[in-house]
């Protein structure tokens, strides 16, 4: 029956659309294709037919339209139909609006704005923009948005601007979007027309107004400050929409113009971010929307979600935050996966303002983590990643690793591996745990991890965690060696991980005397044998074996040459890889040296020692003296040489410029003024002076050009080798040859690593401090949720803070507040002051703080006064810019006003007086805790590498 119905429908469609049987058959056969290859065969046959048909003369226009759509099918299904493009361009010329628009459509489907045929369509567009028929103008404007490139903007810009005032709203709307397109392509091309967007925002037609929000959003994203004046109008528009003043055709599922509402909320979020005044205008309308939105429909929830995003972006308002939290908890409690997903995302936004919020929803979060829906799971991991801190890092990273092991998608695997590494480096509670975690990551995703992570791990094991505790370092290395020897038994280890293992075994395999040299060597030989096709692993293994031999021999012990080791060395010394060969020969040479020499060549545990480089190269001085005695010219330093510019160098410089300009067919920029170039004259003069026997007119100009060009390409790499070759008059072709002595390559291996670790040290420690503060406030507010499984409770406790429960009981038996108060005042002021000076624009993050002043007013006055005393005279000189005191004053008044704004909330909290005062008592210990943790974090030394998110961006390409 179903089939019959669809068959009847097919017939009806075929006849009514005027399509031919061929088209009907094509669509049918594509629809019935069972596999991609079958579909491909159909399309290839179709393309052959079309090629034939299109070469026929005098094709009727309606027929042509059908051919073009058939071509569009071919392209849509992934086949090239470029032979028909020109017909699409031609069809755009047609007078019939339907054919014309089909022409424009297919051109846009086939061509991108850079295609050669586009130039043919610009003329048509120009003509159509002037048409009396608004449908034609609309079609042309749609084409403008898709086909006009930066170069062709001027050709249509005046007409588009004129159309902004067209009587038809559909045209005005599209003209706005065309201008938007020009802005996207080249902001400067429409910079003088921006005011038009403001004007169109007040258009009588809601469609035009709604479309204008698109360019405004982009503009405000770039520069919010220039559009602050729009806040009032935008809020007005949003209010009108929410009050259903728009035509009902814009209603969708009984919500008034929801897509415009969402766009407006996005814009308001940008404008209100960090701007109290602007945000003030928004509070009422946002409250209204929260109240009015229908949370039973998807679109209503989409608006609520956008509201939550907006509330979390603008200057915080406690009432609105409560509404946002309530909405979020509704999402999380919902049965729908989609809503849960939105809830997790919203929660991620809200915890940026108040980390305590996560506490209330811990069980919902855990449910999402165990949900079979992968998208939801992934999103939840994202949230957990954001809330990781040193107390819950073990649970979170363990979960992540479990997840990582179970997924097959390499993209997600890489991503989650990188996050595990990042979190482990940032928050590792112990070295053992860190090593174990890294082992797991390498074992299961080693091939997906960036090599730099491996090098970081090696460096970490080598450097240890603190200079004062040598024992701990040794222990760490021993445990690493133990674990690696164990892991080596497992099949299919990733290459990168094997490299780390080999290196660590070579450096520390025999260090603690637990394992014999021959045992470690045999293990390394096994590795090399098992991975005979991996030259890098082999190289690491050979070097490791060499180190073990060296350490043993230097210590005066004899090492027997194991047969498998001999085989390996023999094999490697005949390897195709010169690198492997060299290692083998070095190894053999090393065996013949005396113990003292060996110790000098391969000192034990010296991978972290700086290699001293004496740039004066004193070991060459004998050789140089000899050469000078034999009549060579002494070396002239660069500074001495730079003053002597030779005329030939200048001549060749102009020659060079001529050369480069002839390479390009067209030159778009103006020619540079000739500049005096430093290095070129110098090398010229030295080479000239080094060839005194050849008179200057004999030096071929081309050769001179060559040297200067070389110089031009590598202006910084003025190398010693060049100098020497110039001195002795030998010319080597150096294009593409790696400059061994060049300054750049010389310093690169050591410099970046040290600088990165030292530069990230500070922020990371700062982060740790704030994290711990946050976590402690989080701990203090654990909510008891009845009737949940012990398993989940435990997980929740480990994720969201173990001490939560104890804290509560502590709060019950706390000491009197008055005793603690002075302690707060004496230990807290320093960080508090910093807080206020550093973040003047950012509001107080902890809502609990808002409650304090009014709640325990008599008590809080003292610390504040003390604070002021501290800030007062000293701060003036301390804080150079001087905003410190004033800002703190402003924020305190804010706190007061906000606090008085929200009596009901405080009431609900103050019913549990113990809770409030427990947070009061937290203040002091918090800072101490934080400092202590900071100190331990420094000691642990795992923190340095990672707090900068950008760092990891380049780690995992």
């Amino acid at each position, binding site marked *: 029956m179903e089939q019959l119905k669809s068959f009847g429908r097919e017939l009806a469609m075929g006849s009514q659309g005027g399509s031919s049987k061929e088209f009907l058959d094509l669509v049918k056969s594509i*629809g019935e294709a069972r596999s991609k290859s079958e579909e491909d065969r159909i399309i290839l046959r179709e393309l052959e037919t079309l090629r034939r048909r299109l070469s026929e003369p005098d094709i009727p226009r309606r027929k042509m339209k059908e051919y073009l759509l058939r071509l569009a099918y071919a392209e849509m299904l992934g086949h090239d139909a470029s032979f028909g493009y020109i017909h699409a361009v031609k069809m755009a010329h047609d007078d019939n609006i*339907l054919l014309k628009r089909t022409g424009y459509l297919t051109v846009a489907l086939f061509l991108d704005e850079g295609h050669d045929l586009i130039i043919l369509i610009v003329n048509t567009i120009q003509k159509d923009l002037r048409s009396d028929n608004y449908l034609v103008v609309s079609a042309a404007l749609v084409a403008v948005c898709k086909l006009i490139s930066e170069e062709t903007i001027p050709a249509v810009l005046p007409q588009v601007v004129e159309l902004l005032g067209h009587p038809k709203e559909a045209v005005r709307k599209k003209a706005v979007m065309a201008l938007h397109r020009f802005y996207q392509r080249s902001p400067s091309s429409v910079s003088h027309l921006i005011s038009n967007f403001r004007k169109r925002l007040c258009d009588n037609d809601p469609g035009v107004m709604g479309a204008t929000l698109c360019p405004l959003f982009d503009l405000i994203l770039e520069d919010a400050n220039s559009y602050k004046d729009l806040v009032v109008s935008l809020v007005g528009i949003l209010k009108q929409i929410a009050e259903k003043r728009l035509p009902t055709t814009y209603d969708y599922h009984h919500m008034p113009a929801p897509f415009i509402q969402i766009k407006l909320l996005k814009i308001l979020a940008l404008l209100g971010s960090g701007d109290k005044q602007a945000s003030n205008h928004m509070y009422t309308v946002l409250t209204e929307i929260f109240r009015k939105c229908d949370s039973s429909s998807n679109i209503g929830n989409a608006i609520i979600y956008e509201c939550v995003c907006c509330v979390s972006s603008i200057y915080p308002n406690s009432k609105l935050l409560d509404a946002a939290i309530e909405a979020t908890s509704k999402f999380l409690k919902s049965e729908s996966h989609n809503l849960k997903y939105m809830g997790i995302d919203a929660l991620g936004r809200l915890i940026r303002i108040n980390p305590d919020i996560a506490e209330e929803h811990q069980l919902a979060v855990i449910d999402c983590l165990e949900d079979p829906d992968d998208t939801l799971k992934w999103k939840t991991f994202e949230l957990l990643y954001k809330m990781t801190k040193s107390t819950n890092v073990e649970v979170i990273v363990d979960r992540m690793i479990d997840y990582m092991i179970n997924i097959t998608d390499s993209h997600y695997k890489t991503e989650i591996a990188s996050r595990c590494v990042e979190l482990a480096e940032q928050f590792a509670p112990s070295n053992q745990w860190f090593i174990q975690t890294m082992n797991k990551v390498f074992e299961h995703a080693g091939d997906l991890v960036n090599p730099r992570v491996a090098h970081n791990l090696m460096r970490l094991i080598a450097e240890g965690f603190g200079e004062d505790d040598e024992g701990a370092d040794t222990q760490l290395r021993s445990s690493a060696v133990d674990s690696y020897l164990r892991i080596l038994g497992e099949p299919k280890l990733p290459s990168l991980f094997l490299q780390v293992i080999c290196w660590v075994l070579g450096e520390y395999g025999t260090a603690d005397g637990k394992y014999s040299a021959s045992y470690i060597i045999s293990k390394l030989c096994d590795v090399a044998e098992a991975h005979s096709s991996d030259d890098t692993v082999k190289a690491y293994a050979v070097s490791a074996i060499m180190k073990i031999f060296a350490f043993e021999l230097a210590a005066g012990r004899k090492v027997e040459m194991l047969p498998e080791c001999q085989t390996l060395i023999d094999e490697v010394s005949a390897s195709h890889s010169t690198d492997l060969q060299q290692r083998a020969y070095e190894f053999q040479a090393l065996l013949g040296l005396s113990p003292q020499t060996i110790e000098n060549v391969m000192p034990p545990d010296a991978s972290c020692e700086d290699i001293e480089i004496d740039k004066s190269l004193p070991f060459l001085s004998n050789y140089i003296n000899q050469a000078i005695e034999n009549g060579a010219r002494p070396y002239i330093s660069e500074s001495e040489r730079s003053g002597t510019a030779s005329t030939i160098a200048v001549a060749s410089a102009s020659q060079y410029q001529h050369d480069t300009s002839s390479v390009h067919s067209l030159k778009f920029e103006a020619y540079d003024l000739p500049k005096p170039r430093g290095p070129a004259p110098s090398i010229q003069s030295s080479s000239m002076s080094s060839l005194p026997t050849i008179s200057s007119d004999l030096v071929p100009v081309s050769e001179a050009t060559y040297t200067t060009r070389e110089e031009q390409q590598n202006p910084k790499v003025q190398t010693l080798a060049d100098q020497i070759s110039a001195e002795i008059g030998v010319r080597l072709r150096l294009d593409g040859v790696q400059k061994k002595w060049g300054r750049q390559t010389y310093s690169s291996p050591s410099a970046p690593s040290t600088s990165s670790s030292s530069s990230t040290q500070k922020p990371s420690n700062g982060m740790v401090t704030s994290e711990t503060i946050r976590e402690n406030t989080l701990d203090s507010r654990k909510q008891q949720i009845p009737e949940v499984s012990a398993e989940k409770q435990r997980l929740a406790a480990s994720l969201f803070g173990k001490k939560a429960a104890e804290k509560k009981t502590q709060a019950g038996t706390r000491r009197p507040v008055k005793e603690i108060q002075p302690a707060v005042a004496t230990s807290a002021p320093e960080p508090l002051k910093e807080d206020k000076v550093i973040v003047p624009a950012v509001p107080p993050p902890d809502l609990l703080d808002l409650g304090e002043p009014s709640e325990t007013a008599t008590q809080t006055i003292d610390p504040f006064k003390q604070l002021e005393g501290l800030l007062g005279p000293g701060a003036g000189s301390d804080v150079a810019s001087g905003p410190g005191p004033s800002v703190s004053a402003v924020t305190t008044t804010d706190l007061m006003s906000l606090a008085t704004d929200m009596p009901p909330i405080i009431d609900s909290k103050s019913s549990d007086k113990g809770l409030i005062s427990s947070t009061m008592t937290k203040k002091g210990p918090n800072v101490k805790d934080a400092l202590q943790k900071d100190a331990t974090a420094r000691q642990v030394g795992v923190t340095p590498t990672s707090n900068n998110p950008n760092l990891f961006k380049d780690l995992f390409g």
Partner: protein
Amino acid sequence: MGIRFVLLVNKQGQTRLAQYFEHLSIDERRALEGEIVRKCLARNDQQNELAILEFIHLLVETMDRHFGNVCELDIMFHLEKVHFMLEEMVMNGCIVETSKTNILSPIQLMEKAS
């Protein structure tokens, strides 16, 4: 840019309509359509997924109004019309029109004119 492409795919994963708001070569499109799930999930921070879901629903409702209980074959036989609807609804990757009347009126007018 909010919306980068719109694809209509049937339950077997076969493409039935594709409109891109940024240029991709045919090869790139093939690769993308193959890995579409991941690309969909690699959204930027400011995307309201639920709203996009509802936007797709709005597109379906609009097609429903035009074709009357739209089915896969409707789209296949009237590919250009669905494209026109989409052109009215999305420009430069932004949602510009959500009133079904406004979306469909030019299409109906064009049908009448020819």
